């Protein structure tokens, strides 16, 4: 066994004269929706969990599952190994359930204020106005407020609904798969999520079915002093294919808000799951006040032979991001991929990366991580490649690139490798660069202005990852980066 921990530390490189650090950033999703809400008062104990479970009309087994997770959580310390500076979270000050008062029975009954909210965010819920070929589940604070294109999906045999509904309508599937990838006691935040999760999306693609459209969930935090604890479960049976995308935004608020999600993916034999994230939670202001704490556990299980799971993420938001979408390569010849762009600006902090666990023979994984730091932000890549004893001929390729804009930001790389099989080949490449004076002057001397030059250089840097996103979201991601970098150069 060989093990390596490398910290190619704090490359707080010298500034370029041409890349000054004037700041200012527009966050267009920062508005608040005025709507009558109902919910639980702040505080967390067994009664809170029983109350939450009762509101959601859950069966007894679900309540017990939650309580077991809660009791486990009480025994766990909050992890502090990430390279993040974070104020202590007062779990008793958070409300664990907030929902619009009027519960809609179908899309037609959704409160107009909510429809308008999603419209403003560019996610129209009216099916006639919706993006062609994309079904949306909209989660507002603690509940799903609507899911589009359900009929068309049902005809194909696909189940796409909120997690609450799945627990009531498809208990056998939920019981079989929930917690089978991320067990209740997996880690501190996963245990908390298991105890108090309120909603999220459930996707089931039966054997041999290629999902006829892109599925997506749009998460919105609106209420104050509320945590969002969503739980998403995607199961692709033998030979099934699905592409899923999530988007996230929240209003501008001065206090930090907690988002602790768990996402589980299960791919059976020959199944393929592609999971893309465009994360734009409120990042806090230019002085580091407010913003979302995004503490998320995402894991996929390539349970069957020849299955494939790929994660693609574009992370521009959140005050703090703590997130490692992982793949357990259990089936022989299974494939795991992770493509990531993480951008931090002002005082944002990101500690993000992936884990690839090779168990099956001839398994392959590929990691492409692009970190961009601007302002006074810190951006870390943390990745684990683990090859178990039986993983004959496992292959991993990791590419980890950092780009620095300005002189007060930091980029850090923490790659861990544990290889227990001598036939495995594990490759790691890492680069750190900055937008150089030379590149800026070259662009400007050809007539391209400063902001456009930075956008162009950053876009080129991220190209490998953008290629992996569904077309319309690649365009959105590119725009998001441009907005996020506004004011990064003077």
């Amino acid at each position, binding site marked *: 066994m060989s093990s390596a921990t490398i910290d190619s530390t704090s490359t707080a490189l010298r500034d370029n004269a041409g890349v000054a650090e004037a700041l200012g950033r527009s966050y267009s999703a920062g508005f608040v929706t005025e709507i009558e809400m109902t919910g639980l008062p702040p505080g967390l104990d067994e009664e809170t969990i029983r109350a939450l479970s009762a509101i959601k009309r859950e069966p007894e087994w679900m309540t017990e599952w939650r309580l077991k997770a809660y009791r486990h959580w009480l025994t766990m310390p909050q992890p502090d190994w990430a390279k993040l500076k974070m104020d202590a979270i007062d779990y008793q000050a958070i409300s664990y359930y907030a929902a619009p008062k009027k519960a809609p029975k179908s899309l037609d009954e959704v409160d107009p204020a909510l429809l308008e909210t999603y419209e403003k965010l560019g996610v129209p819920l009216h099916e006639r106005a919706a993006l062609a070929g994309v079904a949306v589940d909209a989660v507002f604070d603690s509940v799903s407020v609507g899911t589009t294109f359900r009929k068309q999906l049902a005809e194909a045999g696909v189940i796409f609904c909120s997690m609450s509904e799945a627990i009531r309508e498809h208990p056998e599937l939920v019981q079989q798969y929930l917690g089978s990838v991320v067990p209740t006691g997996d880690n501190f935040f996963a245990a908390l999520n298991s105890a108090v999760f309120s909603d999220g999306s459930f996707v089931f693609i039966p054997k041999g079915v290629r999902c006829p459209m892109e599925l997506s969930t749009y998460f919105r935090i609106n209420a104050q002093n509320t945590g969002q604890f969503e739980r998403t479960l995607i199961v692709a049976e033998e030979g099934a294919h699905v592409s899923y995308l999530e988007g996230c935004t929240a209003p501008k608020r001065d206090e930090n808000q907690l988002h602790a999600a768990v996402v589980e993916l299960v791919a059976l034999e020959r199944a393929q799951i592609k999971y893309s994230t465009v994360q734009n939670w409120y990042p806090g202001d230019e002085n580091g006040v407010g913003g979302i704490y995004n503490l998320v556990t995402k894991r996929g299980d390539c349970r069957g032979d020849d299955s494939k799971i790929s994660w693609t993420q574009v992370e521009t938001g959140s005050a703090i991001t703590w997130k490692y979408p992982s793949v357990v390569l259990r089936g022989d010849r299974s494939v795991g991929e992770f493509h990531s762009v993480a951008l931090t600006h002002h005082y944002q902090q990101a500690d993000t990366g992936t884990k690839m666990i090779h168990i099956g023979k001839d398994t392959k994984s590929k990691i492409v991580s692009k970190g961009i730091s601007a302002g006074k932000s810190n951006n870390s890549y943390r990745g684990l490649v683990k090859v178990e004893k039986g993983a004959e001929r496992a292959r991993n390729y990791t590419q980890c690139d950092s780009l620095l804009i300005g002189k007060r930001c930091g980029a850090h790389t923490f790659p861990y490798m544990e290889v227990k099989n001598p036939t495995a080949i594990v490759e790691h490449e890492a680069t750190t660069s900055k937008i150089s004076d030379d590149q800026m*002057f*070259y*662009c*400007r*001397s050809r*007539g*391209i202005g400063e902001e*456009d030059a930075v956008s162009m250089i950053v876009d*080129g840097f991220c*190209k490998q990852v953008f290629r992996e996103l569904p077309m319309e979201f690649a365009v959105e991601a590119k725009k998001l980066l441009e907005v996020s970098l506004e004011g990064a150069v003077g």
Partner: protein
Amino acid sequence: MLKIENLHARVAGKEILKGLSLSVNAGEVHAIMGPNGAGKSTLGNVLSGRDGYEVTSGSVTYNGVDLLALEPEARAAAGVFLAFQYPVEIPGVNNTYFLRAALNAQRKVRGEKELDSMQFLKLVREKLKVMQISDELLHRAVNEGFSGGEKKRNEIFQMALLEPKLAILDETDSGLDIDALKQVAQGVNALRSPERSFLVITHYQRLLDYIEPDFVHVLAGGRIVESGDKTLALKLEEHGYAWVREHGEPAGATA
């Protein structure tokens, strides 16, 4: 079109240009020669507006405008082009995309209509013929993985496409073998016109065998110390820069 008067400039606190004066009329080709450290590249960088080059006195007037007051991108839009001695790599940014962004940014400033991709492609095809470079270079990222010769040819291709009024070639011949040198020179010659002026900065005379200058200036110690026609370049080649430094008779004459 270009009038440089008594130009003094500093780099990192050190004075490099010490009273340089030069006049260039439309359509003329001026060669600037000189030993290492004379201030040749500084001149190119000052004219195109690179950061870190501080002009302490003197003036540069370009078509009646104070050139030094303009940002680099504004100088480009006004028709100033610098062919880099060391062209810069921009990974992941497609060469064609870069060129179109540059051309359209310039056109926008000049109040001209921007070109769509079809119109641009047509223009590229025309220019490719003139420059004799393979269109394979256009599909790659800007200068990424280009050989030295490819980078320089790409510079000349950019020049052909952007159609500047004042082209500054900063040691475009350095690092080129004789075949690549000829190709680059052919490209430059094809672009010579009564409206377009060139400043050809070079250390060696050999480039001037292929690009015939109207005037040759010798830059030494931050000033033009000698001006003449193309025969001056040949004299330099024969006697070396030591002769200029001493401001004396050619060394061979007294031997």
